[in-house]
């Protein structure tokens, strides 16, 4: 199973390390043509606006085709990229997840925090850094984890997103859930 990590910018190396620990073969994806070689894609944390600028129109289209056909998992900026609707300010989304997501919803860096949420009935440490918040979910979106009243890990078909950074905690459950999704989609 080959997992790509989008490596335009951001904490792609933290995802690479986590996925390799879990036994996946990892490719850092910088060019659209590399998408043809992978079974699933992780879109890391970083600046979602910068991702869009670096992708350009052609890269964005290729990525959109990919996430329609194969499993994708985004954290923080990656979750923003996968959404249908983005606010604060509005920007383009790939539309793989029927959610409305608000950028920098908790405030600035001074408001970043480590919180304890619940993943499928069990507590989980969650690192929120200038994090977005999912404000609305469509009828086909499944909530896999919550923090307070907020959905923080969601899934729809082959697409999965976390508004926090599981790659910066020791708990491997979110990445394992994605690898299971990739395995079952093959």
């Amino acid at each position, binding site marked *: 199973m080959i997992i790509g990590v989008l490596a335009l910018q951001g904490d792609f190396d*933290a995802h690479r390390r986590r996925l390799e620990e879990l036994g996946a073969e990892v490719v850092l994806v*910088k060019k659209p043509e590399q998408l043809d070689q992978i079974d699933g894609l992780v879109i890391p944390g970083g600046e979602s606006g*910068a991702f869009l600028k*670096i992708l350009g129109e052609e890269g964005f289209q290729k990525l959109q085709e990919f996430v329609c056909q194969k499993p994708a998992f985004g954290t923080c900026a990656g979750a923003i990229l996968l959404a249908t609707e983005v606010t604060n300010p509005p920007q383009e989304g790939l539309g793989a997840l029927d959610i409305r997501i608000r950028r920098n919803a908790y405030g600035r*860096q001074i408001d970043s925090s480590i919180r304890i949420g619940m993943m499928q009935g069990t507590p989980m440490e969650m*690192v929120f850094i200038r994090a977005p918040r999912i404000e609305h979910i469509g009828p086909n979106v499944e909530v896999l984890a919550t923090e307070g009243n907020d959905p923080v890990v969601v899934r729809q078909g082959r697409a999965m997103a976390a508004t926090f950074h599981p790659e*910066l905690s020791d708990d491997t459950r979110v990445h394992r859930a994605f690898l299971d999704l990739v395995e079952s989609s093959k």
Partner: protein
Amino acid sequence: MSQNNGSSSSLRLKTGLAEMLKGGVIMDVTNAEQAEIAEKAGAVAVMALERVPAQIRAEGGVARMASPKKIREIMATVSIPVMAKCRIGHFAEAQILQELGVDYIDESEVLTPADEAHHVDKHAFKTPFVCGARNLGEALRRIAEGACLIRTKGEAGTGDVVHAVKHMRQIVSEMRGLTILSEQELYARAKDLQAPYELVSMVARAGKLPVPNFSAGGIATPADAALVMQLGAEAVFVGSGIFMTDSSTFAEPAEAAKRAKAIVLAATHFRDPKVLLEVSADLAGAMKGLAVAGLDEAHLLQTRGW
């Protein structure tokens, strides 16, 4: 439930934001218009300044923290992180910047130092700090004081990459050197480096700094960005190189936007000469710059701090 108070979780949040900036370009800006150009070009953050380093160098005088009004204006304009500089040792400027809500504070040699012996105790702040370094000892002293991100000092405001290269090579080679030392030798080396043994030992085991390591100080072209990234920088700060044509003239906005975009793409594709050629081919030129070799020792900014 928030677990914000423990110092180790605070450290993880501070380095965590630096992790998100990796592979990106942080651009110096002096007003909202420039900040918008930077964000549109794909900058991962902006550094809010009163004057860019090339202007500070040309105009002289005491360089201080930018006015809160100006920083606020920039914070209101862009959605990417906003950094701002305080003078070395000026913890009151840092307190003001934290109160203002900037996302990162750069305790910077580009401004006129406020203390000849002490840097800011950065552990005392919730806002993360970046600091400059010329060598491993300096980097580890700053980390011991609480810096969560290190950048090379280079020689700011010159557009001459030579010292950014020198400092990155120095830090990388000193780190590599530690990995082959015995435990006993590490104690002696910590003394030479004037850095805490615990940090020296950590670098010896990991072969890299415990915080991200970026490059700054003279990067002016896409090729410069690719050079320092290939030498080990995990992201780049570009100061005067985007918005200046020489030390007192601003570039046309369209030209600045082009340069900014080109450097962003160069930082992502730093090992891909095909892309580097493509993004370089379209540029009209770079800032005129100052050769560092021709500067008097007294005019160097990098010797500030210790």
